């Protein structure tokens, strides 16, 4: 945690340097604070489509530019698109193109979400006419840039759990402004021209006597410049002070200063093979490479020139498209040669298809149809329809999970986000199979709730984290065998525990409405289903937990280390064993089984999410912030349910008398 805060402080300090960018320093077109500039241009759809598929190396993996744009806008604004004041929808990729190629206009777009106006108070900005939570344009925040960065550096040293909302808000705003500034100044080098009028002839001669050159011209001539310097200094690095060396040094300093900010996007595949040179280059590192490297980078320098062409033609859609296509084709050719491109179109297709969103909507529809069947159970068409829509929703989610496996060449679960998808899909599948067996509509209803709730949670989690959901993994997790066995089985165990808890809610509710007396067969069926799901869950939880121990034995040299995440998995196993043994021993009956299964659901939630919040243990890579509130809400609701169940159970046992006349299965006979 300490390292993180110091890194954050260092990053914010670096951000302060970005204000020297001509655009960000206000040397470009400046917006009138009173009237935000309406976006005066638009990108050709085919250009946007083309650039969405552009491969980039970001956070250590090759991904499409679309993914970078989506998550960047999600982080700053909380959505994947925004609307201009005149109602035009701007997709994330279009917004990113605005920021890169028209930063002066991007500064006027209200994309910065401020969750609490107290943050603006803290940095000394006014917010008249705005709501408490509202959106702001960069130019509105820019006057407080220095103050924001200074405060953020101070707050970065406060441990995350000790920060108040304003401190956290300032930090978030600072990192968002830093990101924006990095992107907005990324192409400063491409806008830059170097006049040659005052250079000596021997230097201008290298550039064919042109009156001005571009950055790519200087980078392409790196070896000639180097050679000229050696000749001028007669082989000595220092000591010669001539017109040529002075001009040369000035050019190199300018070049270094101009390309300094061009580090955010690694757009250029490295020369050679991916194994030998895995790290792609940004314009800054390409410039450095050109002057120092031992391998040719002509292809990449040519791309640098195309990037300048794109910048020059940013106001001419047709010319921009032509340049963008040249850049795209050159990039794809280099990436394909390194075997790094084939997954990029799949990832673009995954995000374009938006399968998880459609799955969420389909589960919502399935839930509505299922609710309809509660009031009209004889409407066969609705019953079949609800079941059909659920299968469609499940198919969409499964297709999405499969595409993610293909993109990352990994088993279905390797991040917390993926656990939500997988738990949901498996839970719905088990519910549908159970419905196929029982045909009472219970599992279908519960499955619809689980499907909708799960996909909604996945959606909210992705929005909240606003980070690539297919990241690289830390070294210990980078093993497909254990991800496929231990992680998958444990997650199936979570799924079963949640499903059993949901079905048990139906039982407890039914019991409160007297269904044990009025519909005993229905209630028994609920118990049988719960019991079956618990057995299914126990199988996967126990096997998954032991497999986790075997993995730990292979990785860390011990089978069991009482680590919080290990203990969480053990708690699920122990609680399910308690339920089943208590049931077999006759200590609990149907109602008790339901109540204990609801508690089991809480145990699953603690193991799945809660232990990550403890901030301790070897599984700290599962740590996530901001879910404490959600867990408290879930815990409170379940607490109320359990309290109500307890009161109901007490009244029910009193009403039944000392002999216990409530219809239940005889003790010791498992259903």
């Amino acid at each position, binding site marked *: 945690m300490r390292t993180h805060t110091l890194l954050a402080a260092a990053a914010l300090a670096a951000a302060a340097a970005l204000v020297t960018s001509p655009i960000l320093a206000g040397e470009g077109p400046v917006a009138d604070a009173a009237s935000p500039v309406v976006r005066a241009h638009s990108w050709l759809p085919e250009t946007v489509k083309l650039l969405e598929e552009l491969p980039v*190396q970001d*956070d*250590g*993996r090759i991904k499409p530019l679309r993914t970078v744009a989506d998550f960047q806008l999600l982080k700053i604004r909380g959505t994947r698109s925004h609307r201009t004041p005149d109602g035009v929808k701007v997709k994330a990729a279009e917004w990113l193109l605005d920021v890169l190629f028209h930063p002066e206009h991007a500064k006027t777009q209200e994309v910065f979400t401020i969750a609490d106006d107290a943050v603006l108070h803290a940095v000394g900005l006014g917010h008249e006419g705005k709501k408490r939570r509202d959106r702001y344009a960069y130019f509105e925040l820019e006057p407080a840039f220095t103050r924001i960065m200074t405060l953020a550096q101070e707050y970065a040293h406060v441990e995350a759990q000790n920060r108040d909302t304003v401190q956290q808000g300032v930090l978030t705003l600072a990192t968002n402004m830093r990101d924006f500034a990095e992107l907005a100044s990324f192409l400063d080098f491409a806008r830059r021209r170097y006049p040659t009028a005052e250079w000596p002839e021997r230097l201008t001669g290298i550039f064919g006597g042109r009156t001005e050159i571009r950055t790519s011209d200087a980078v392409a001539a790196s070896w000639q410049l180097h050679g000229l310097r050696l000749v001028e200094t007669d082989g000595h690095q220092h000591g010669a002070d001539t017109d040529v060396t002075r001009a040369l040094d000035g050019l190199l300093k300018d070049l270094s200063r101009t390309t300094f900010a061009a580090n955010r996007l690694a757009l250029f595949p490295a020369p050679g093979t991916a194994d030998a040179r*895995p*790290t*792609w280059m940004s314009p800054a590192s390409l410039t450095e490479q050109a002057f120092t490297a031992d391998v040719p980078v002509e292809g990449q320098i040519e791309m640098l020139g195309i990037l300048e062409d794109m910048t020059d033609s940013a106001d001419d859609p047709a010319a921009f498209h032509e340049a963008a296509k040249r850049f795209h084709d050159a990039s794809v050719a280099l990436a394909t040669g390194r075997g790094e491109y084939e997954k990029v179109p799949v990832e673009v297709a995954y995000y374009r298809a938006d399968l998880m969103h459609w799955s969420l909507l389909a589960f919502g529809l399935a839930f509505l149809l299922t609710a309809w069947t509660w009031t009209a159970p004889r409407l066969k068409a609705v019953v079949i329809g609800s079941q059909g829509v659920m299968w469609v929703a499940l198919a969409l989610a499964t297709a999405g999970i499969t595409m993610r496996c293909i993109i990352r060449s990994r088993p279905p679960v390797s991040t917390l986000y993926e656990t939500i998808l997988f738990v949901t899909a498996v839970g719905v599948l088990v519910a549908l199979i159970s419905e196929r*067996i*029982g*045909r009472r509509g219970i599992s279908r209803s519960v499955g619809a709730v689980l499907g909708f709730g799960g996909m909604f949670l996945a959606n909210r989690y992705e929005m909240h984290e606003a980070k690539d959901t297919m990241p*690289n993994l*830390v*070294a*210990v997790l*980078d*093993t497909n065998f*254990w991800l496929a066995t231990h992680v998958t089985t444990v997650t199936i165990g979570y799924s079963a525990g949640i499903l059993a808890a949901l079905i048990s809610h139906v039982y407890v509710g039914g019991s409160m409405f007297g269904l044990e007396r009025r519909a005993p*067969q229905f209630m028994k*069926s609920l118990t*049988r289903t719960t019991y*079956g799901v618990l*057995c*299914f869950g*126990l*199988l996967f939880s*126990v*096997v998954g937990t*032991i*497999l986790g*121990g*075997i*993995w730990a*034995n*292979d*990785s*860390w*040299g*011990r*089978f*069991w*280390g*009482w*680590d*919080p995440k290990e*203990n*969480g998995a053990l*708690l699920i196993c*122990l*609680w399910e*064993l*308690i339920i089943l*043994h*208590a049931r077999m*021993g006759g*200590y609990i009956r149907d109602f008790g089984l339901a109540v204990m299964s609801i508690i089991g659901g809480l145990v699953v939630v603690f193991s799945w999410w809660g232990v990550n919040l*403890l*901030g*301790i*243990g070897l599984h700290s890579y599962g740590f996530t912030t901001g879910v404490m509130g959600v867990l408290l809400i879930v815990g409170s609701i379940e607490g109320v349910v359990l309290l109500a169940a307890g009161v109901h159970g007490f009244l029910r046992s009193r009403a039944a008398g000392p002999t216990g006349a409530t219809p239940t299965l005889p003790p010791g006979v*498992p259903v």
Partner: protein
Amino acid sequence: MKRLLNGLLALFSSYGLAVTLLFFLFVLTFLGTWEQRFTSLYEVQRQFFDSTWLVYRRFGVPIPLPGVYLLLTLLSINLIVGGIVRIRKSSATFGILIAHVGIVTMLAGGLIEYHSSQKGHMTLHENGQRGPQQADEFKSYHEWEIVVAEIPRQGGVIELVIPGKQFIDLRPEATATFVSDELPFDVTVSRVARNSRVVPASQARGGGGPVIDGFTLVDLPQMKEAEQDSAGLYVTLSEKNGGARHDAILWAMQDLPWVVEMGARTYSVDLSRRRWKVPFSIVLDDFRKVDHPGTMMPASFESDVTKIEGGATERINISMNRPLRHAGYTLFQSGWGPQNAAPGTPLFSTFSVVRNPADSVPLWSCYVIAAGLLIHFVQKLVRHIQAENRRATA
């Protein structure tokens, strides 16, 4: 007597005992997880999981609880008596029976591991400039020992070891004396501290123990990570037959042992982590940390080592999830450093070393448990489907 035996048999085979034990295991596992927020995993393990009983204090209220060691012992008995011996043997309970056998096997493996495994680490340095590049022993993470060695003039070393268990838990005011016929003196230790620091007496601010050669030992709170503790103690060598006394402070962070001359004989006394020999040597040839491209996130850690055994050498690569298993010992890639080393700086690589006779038991018991639970689940599912079909056709 028979009634008593039957009563005990009924108790130990009962569902009630199983539920009670499982419930206490659940509670202790939860408390042990929660307490890790405040104290080290090692201490939590000692208090909750390796103990036969404990007193848990919350809000000043002492709550006596059984320890996990006791619970697992009772659960094993309950499983064997109730879940294997007395369980009704039929096709309906076949899966449960198999699963119980698997769990008992796993618990037995755990018992063997707990009592006979050796766990520690071996740290080797590239090119050997800043530490050993080769080793044939490993050190415990938590256990201590005092090593008394005689250094004969003709070479070689005769070592006597006092295991940490015999002194590390001494109360501050207590002393312990160790006697050996092979030594011309008795060894007395006192003021043992699990975590400590040696400071000049002038800086102790009244907090240290007796002053020896101007220094004193200051007791410190234990670290959150117990392996970072530096134990310390006072030691007195009392020559037999009423001879001279020699006092010293032993501290785990001392680079060199305390050396005492007694007449013509020279002895060294050292407090260090417990060590175990391995029947081969490991030489670190190269360590590599590879990050994901353009990031500081590690993609892999790996060490190229040479194993030397009986004159034969073998080049081996050890990396995350790919340990070296040999002669009953397993070496895992577990650490490296210095963390912020400049490029080209020689690095060190730390291997966790484990000798566990029950190493493969969890895997086999996992197969057995999985088979048992699968059989039971499929049986239940088939019955459930049949019951639902009967209902549908009725």
